[in-house]
């Protein structure tokens, strides 16, 4: 990895930076039993990392989910519960510079 002059990088780093690594000890578990597809969990998610299309399809992208619990708190049918962290957290990587992708960006 290389830090460029002026911290210049390729766009799309929000996706590359796996901020799910910030989670402490809990994450939402979508039970998919009583879900009515009201979409409140997705709207309440401060990270915008809850996706779903239709009943019992909603999920949180653990690569970015911070485990705040807003979704579980707003779910009107208690179909989301916070559970202890399982397995490893995503690796918090941060890419400023990729030699191959970046070479053509420099005018020097």
């Amino acid at each position, binding site marked *: 990895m290389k830090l460029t002059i*002026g*911290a*210049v990088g390729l766009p799309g780093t929000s996706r590359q*930076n796996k901020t799910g690594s910030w989670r402490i000890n809990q994450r939402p578990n979508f039970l998919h039993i009583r879900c009515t597809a009201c979409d409140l969990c997705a709207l309440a998610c401060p990270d915008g990392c809850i996706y779903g299309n239709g009943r019992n399809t909603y999920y949180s992208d653990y690569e970015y989910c911070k485990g705040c619990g807003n979704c579980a708190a707003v779910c009107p049918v208690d179909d989301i519960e916070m559970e202890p962290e399982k397995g490893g957290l995503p690796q918090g990587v941060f890419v400023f510079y990729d030699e191959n992708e970046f070479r053509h960006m420099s*005018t*020097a």
Partner: protein
Amino acid sequence: MARRMLEGSQGVAQAVALCHPAVICAYPITPQTHIVAELADMVASGELKAEYVNAESEHSAASIVLGASATGVRTFTSTSSQGLLLMGEVLFNIAGMRLPVVLTCVNRAVSAPLNIWNDQQDSLSLRDSGVIQLYAENNQEAADLIYLAYRVAEDHRVLLPAMVCLDGYILSHAWEAVEIPTPKEVDAFLPPYSPLYKLDPEAPLTLGMYANPELYTEARYMLQRAMEEAITAIQETSHSFELIFSRPMPGILEEYRTEDATTVLLGMGSLVSVAKEVADELRGQGEKVGVVKLVSYRPFPKEMVWEALKGASDVLVLEKGISLGSAGPLLLDVRSACHHRPHQPRVSGFVCGLGGRDVTRQTIKAALAEKELVDARFLDLKADLELEGMGQASRDKQPALARGARRKRAPRKEGINSA
């Protein structure tokens, strides 16, 4: 090369025009306005091919030149006082993104109380922003430092914004003979800007992006190293300037009659001219007085300052600003340059010329008459003016060293705080 009678602002505007900025953006503020008004006229008449953008504030003006510079073109803005402070937030970003924006600060006091006249508190307050700061003594230097600023800022070892500081009114509104080089000479000195990276819709980039604790320190380290490189770049560029334009360019500092000087006056900007006159006068009386004019305040050329001062026994730092609660910021740098050296001189700090009060020969002689080591001695205080709660503004009341208030605290009045 043509020698012309010009207002300081006009000299700067003509120098900027000769550097062909693609985008000029500013918000008017006294005493800077003449510079951008002149440039606006040149753009309107077609004499200068540039995009002139009117902004709704200095914050916007700085943001616009940031964006323009990121697209890989030369830019210019200018401001003073409150305007510079409003730009401050953006200037840190311009430096962090390593964009070689050039701007002028026509130095003016900072409110409150409201004051439109000259001192250097505005630019001194932005010393930590990562912007190169160069101070002009006269109108010729104000114009010449523009060419230098562009070349140093755009040097790939540096890539930092650069600000040319000239004293409001004293230079900006005063008429002097200024040598304006031919376009050919300027082109020989200043190559076209070749950006390291540039914004391009075909190949998107993000600049100055989010850096977490794992990377931020290194980004700041790179800025500090770039500032250090700027010292070398200014030296080399000054040399090249002298070769092409055939006149002196003290890009770092200038020594005036310091060869055998035991007392050295050190300052920045127009007050140096007065200091030189005092030095001449005292030399005539056999006193060994010299002057050091610091041009490059940021980067601070520590080694060169020491080289210039090491023969002296007394150094008097004269500055038009103060880091309130401490001393003049320049004093702190000069003392630091002399620290841990053999036979270091005594370095005293004087605050003068605030809010447009003239720095006269008497002002500088008052500093020379000071026998004690002082940190922040205010010169020319009016002895007959009563300052509420402090009595007369007599200089005798100032502590020799800023050790903090020694006055007894007034007894708390009952009823005020409990009400």
